[in-house]
């Protein structure tokens, strides 16, 4: 049994179809969710986090159905037992500004039923240490930097070592050292939890995830092992003296040569080792071209 099993899941907001028949199943390990803005990443994460319900399709979390249907209404116990095993970092988490980092995580710990005071305090300290905030525990959240606030959010999601960990853009606002720390924390968490994280950073996925799902326009355009996705770009990436007339994307690198992705190789081009980013841009293909033609439309 997979920890998370979604089949043909759809979700619409008014006329906008955010998810259009997504299948996704994963278990222990870190699964990365890539995709342009508006592709439905946050919607998918919220469904896995039991924050919203899917319009149709089946959702199984830890083997239980959080939604229920008219034929088989969910018992409140099912949703609650899923939620007991769930950690969630929303994309935009509001923090009460007069709370301290410790106070905030402790508050969430109470909502997660850590009722014994001593055990709760130990657990809050443990997760704050995991994200490297031990020294800032007593500081007011209003006085923390963006990256530190993000880590407070991450700390609460790690409470109780949840079996399903859902992280919506956890790396936003982190500097390279903090990112490296986060990667270490998450690779440990991936050893016993099913971690699903969305990001805009292909490097995060390359460094962290065994598995990657690329979501475009509410559909999974790729779902597989990271190295497989990288392999799809084999033979389509070059270093050349000019940008290439028909490439998907190309840019002038610091060395003065052009990194050309897709299209026929420009004259004198030499093949380059593809990265996950190259493969991702190739996969987006037409979408990436469109973004290049009208960069202002890319929010």
């Amino acid at each position, binding site marked *: 049994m997979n920890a998370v099993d979604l089949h043909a899941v759809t979700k619409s907001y008014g006329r906008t179809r955010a998810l259009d028949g997504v299948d996704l199943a994963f278990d222990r390990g870190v699964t990365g969710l890539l995709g342009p803005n508006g592709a439905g990443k946050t919607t998918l994460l919220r469904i896995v986090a039991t924050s919203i319900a899917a319009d149709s399709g089946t959702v199984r979390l830890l083997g239980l159905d959080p939604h229920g249907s008219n034929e088989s209404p969910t018992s409140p116990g099912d949703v609650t037992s899923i939620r007991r095993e769930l950690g969630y970092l929303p994309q935009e988490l*509001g923090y009460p500004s007069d*709370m301290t980092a410790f*106070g905030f995580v402790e508050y969430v710990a109470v909502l997660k039923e850590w009722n014994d005071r001593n055990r709760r305090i130990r657990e809050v300290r443990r997760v704050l240490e995991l994200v490297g905030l031990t020294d800032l525990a007593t500081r007011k959240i209003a006085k923390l930097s963006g990256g530190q606030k993000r880590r407070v959010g991450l700390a609460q999601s790690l409470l109780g070592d949840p079996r399903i960990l859902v992280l919506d853009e956890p790396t936003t606002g982190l500097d390279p050292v903090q990112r490296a720390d986060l990667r270490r924390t998450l690779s440990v968490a991936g050893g016993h939890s099913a971690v699903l994280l969305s990001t805009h950073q292909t490097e995060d996925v390359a460094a962290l995830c065994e598995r990657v799902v690329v979501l475009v326009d509410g559909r999974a355009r790729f779902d597989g092992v990271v190295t497989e996705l990288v392999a799809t770009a084999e033979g389509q990436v070059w270093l050349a003296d000019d940008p290439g007339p028909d490439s998907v994307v190309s840019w002038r690198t610091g060395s003065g040569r052009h990194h050309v992705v897709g299209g026929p190789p420009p004259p004198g081009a030499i093949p380059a080792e593809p990265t996950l980013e190259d493969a991702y841009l190739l996969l987006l293909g037409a979408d990436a071209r469109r973004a290049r033609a009208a960069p202002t439309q890319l929010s």
Partner: protein
Amino acid sequence: MSMQTWHADRDLLAAYVDGGLGPVEGASVEQHLNRCSQCRRAMGPLVDAPALDRVWAGVLEAVESPPLPLPARLARRLGVAEPTTILLAATASLRTAWVVSAFVALSFAAAAAALSGGAALAPFLLVAPLVPVLGVASAYGPREDPLESLVVTAPYGRTRLILVRSLGVLVSVLPFAVCLGLVLHGPVWLAVAWLGPALALVPILMALSCFVGPRAGATAVAIAWSGVVLLSLRGVPATWPVEATQQAAYAALAVISLGVLLVRTRQDRRIGAVL
């Protein structure tokens, strides 16, 4: 500073660490330790490490745990479970600032009514039942609670959280308001009569919030209640809004609202449906 030439021997340090020295001797060793790094180093291995860890853990606990605000501390004294007081402490409408402003508003309304010799009951009748309503409204999300996205996915349950906060709000303002009501001129039953609408308006607000959200719900309740009080200024006795017939009407509305709430609460654990 003169050079240190004398050093405490091991037995003396051990006795000091064990607390076995007399007050004078102990204070002298302590004085010396403050200035002599060599003796401090010598003392290190003599200290019981687990005991030190326990002390340090205790210090951390005292420093890191945020202090509970006064209402939450009182709640703890009254036997409210410890985890619940943490939730109460995070409730905006139990913050000292809100409680104080509620008390001030109530006091002014009561003073106006008292100074006019009971002729101007309207301010008190207007304000007193609305104070708990506004407090409960501010105990809601999503705008009021920046944690909303997390609260809905926590096993505790959002309905339970709102109910805990609402009870906290009611318990923190009602006793004071009742005392104020006692100083009003007029019939003695007036001091508690306004509790009828006050307690009825809260479930009405919560039922409305199911459909239009707490802000619109509180606005609607406030306008409706103001309307009732203002209408009573025209040719009916000042106590009209809290007389028996009207009380029955409030109670009926409250019962209907509780029914609505009960139905909605059953659906609360269904994803996407919240109180």
